[in-house]
């Protein structure tokens, strides 16, 4: 019996288990195996790409992938147009920098704390948008991101203002030299973070809470009338999407060893948002694949100068216009064509 048939029989039957099984839903065991195999393959990538530059590119891919896939949780699954997501990343960057440099906190503790700070910030963004819908949420959260940036710029005694912060303490593993190992340690830390984030996100969206937020997105009135609390779910969704985003920011600060308000810029926001949309929303994996595609694509065009953002923009436009479902939608339709062909051959 094929996977598609299995999913069909499961949907036609009323769900008896704690978590209802939706259309196209893969059993969790199968998905867990997929995640393990996928990340094992990623862990082997340094065997193929042996220079430290490609490891650097992959580290950036992993950081973007964490930020983009967490954004997919609030934007795709939650349907909450949180344009302050990139600010949560920036808050992680600055929280880590200030906690390690000014408060002298241990880098690993500071990294976890940065995630917590981002969660608190996410709750602070959520409170004003609890009553709002659609475009208003875009505007308030956009405003929030700008507000955070302005505050960081104006508190230049602590944050360095436009100069940013330099010589941020890096992470450490016992006496291992993180700087001279060809970025191996950072590669595996970034990969571990992405793996943790992905497992967390997938478990979240498969849980009852995750199904509840999708219900709210698809039919708010009905979901509310069935007893799902809009306020609570929104707070949970945004808080959940913030933790690993903040940690990714902290990791970025530790890796780059400097911080600037560039992390709040519209251009970074545009890139990450296009990863979410290009990958296909409400998939988590789509955002990760798109981070990989866009980053590698952009690195491959490093010699094109000003043409690079132009080509990237055209690519985004073409995919958005031709494939509303993004890369994952593209793969799905390709697979549908393929399976139709193979089943036609069988019959």
């Amino acid at each position, binding site marked *: 019996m094929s996977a598609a048939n299995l999913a069909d029989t499961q949907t036609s039957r009323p769900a008896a288990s704690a978590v209802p099984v939706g259309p196209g839903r893969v059993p969790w065991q199968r998905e867990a195996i997929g995640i393990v195999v996928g990340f094992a393959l990623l862990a082997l990538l340094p065997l193929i790409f042996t220079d430290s530059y490609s490891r650097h590119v992959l580290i950036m891919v992993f950081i973007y992938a964490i930020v983009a896939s967490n954004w997919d949780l609030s934007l795709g699954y939650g349907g909450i147009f949180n344009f302050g997501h990139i600010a949560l990343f920036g808050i992680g960057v600055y929280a880590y920098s200030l906690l390690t440099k000014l408060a002298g906190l241990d880098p690993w503790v500071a990294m976890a704390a940065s995630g917590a700070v981002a969660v608190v910030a996410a709750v602070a963004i959520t409170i004003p948008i609890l009553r709002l819908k659609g475009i208003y949420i*875009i505007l308030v959260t956009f405003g929030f991101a700008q507000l955070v940036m302005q505050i960081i710029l104006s508190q230049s005694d602590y944050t360095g203002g436009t100069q940013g912060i330099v010589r941020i303490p890096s992470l450490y593993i016992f006496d291992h030299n993180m700087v001279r190992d060809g970025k191996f340690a950072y590669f595996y830390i970034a990969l571990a973070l992405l793996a943790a984030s992905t497992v967390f996100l997938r478990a979240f969206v498969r849980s009852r809470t995750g199904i509840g937020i999708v219900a709210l997105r698809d039919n708010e009135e009905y979901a509310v009338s069935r007893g799902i609390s809009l306020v609570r779910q929104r707070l949970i969704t945004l808080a959940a999407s913030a933790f690993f985003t903040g940690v990714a920011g902290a990791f970025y600060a530790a890796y780059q060893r400097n911080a600037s308000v560039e992390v709040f810029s519209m251009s970074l926001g545009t890139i990450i948002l296009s990863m979410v949309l290009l990958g296909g929303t409400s998939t988590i994996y789509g955002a990760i694949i798109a981070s990989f595609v866009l980053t590698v694509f952009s690195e491959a065009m490093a010699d094109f100068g000003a043409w690079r953002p132009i080509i990237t923009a055209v690519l985004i436009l073409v995919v958005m216009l031709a494939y509303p479902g993004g890369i994952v939608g593209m793969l799905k339709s390709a697979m549908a064509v393929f399976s139709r062909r193979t089943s036609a051959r069988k019959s």
Partner: protein
Amino acid sequence: MNTAADILFGGLFQGSLYAMMAVGLALVWTTIGVFNFSHGVFMMLGAYLAWQGIAWGFPAYVAFPLAVALMAGVGWLLQATVVRPLIGRANLVLVVVITTLAAGSLIENGALVVWGPRSKQVPPLLEGNITLGGIGVSLHQIAIIVITPIILAALWFFLNRTRLGLALRAVAQNEDASRLVGLNVTMLYALAFGIAAALAALAGIFLGGYRFMTPVMGADPLLKALIVVVFGGISSISGPIFAAYVIGFFEAICSYYFGLYWTPALLFAALILTLMVKPEGLFTRSGGRLA
């Protein structure tokens, strides 16, 4: 006396600029129901086209209207390529945000390739300075203060007193019903985008006349226009216009008493507060309508 004159003049000037930046954004939002994130880039391109016209030896009174007219065409083109094909998609607002952002990035970097990163300036609308109420002001700024209300009044007249304008407002209120009574919705969408882009070009020329222009000059005005539109309420055209002047004065007062550094933060704090208390915007009556 000087303080009052400073605040009054600063408020009027900034308010006029903001109104000019925001009105096109509000027009597109009210008719098509999307936010055009390339609006700031339109301002930049309008200013650069005007500069190019001047560089080719056209006098300002030819180059400026030409740039505005060309930008109307660009607005139409953008609408036809990255907005119109998406109408009817489930997550239209979001997808248009990304396509207009991408198109904006395309135009911005295109301008960088064509004109280079060096900053430029278009000639002011009027040369010279005068002293008014004890403060020195440039005639360019006076011209902006005078011209903006005229343009806005003309737009109001167009939307309220002409057949075409009424058709545009009808589309804003109910697209299906407009189609049923025989309005050409596709053409009206294009018209809204064209007018918006032309207004953005004018705002860009205003900006380029007193500030140096760079290919990235549109980012900040876009942000300001967004704030203005949110403050004023996004269901009307007149709301954002009032809001533009309110914000102009708010900034003039804030930067006088709290300094330039804190003004943007205060503005955003006021914005978030406004939305918490009155999400439909300051100047919206219930059942908001266009103009």
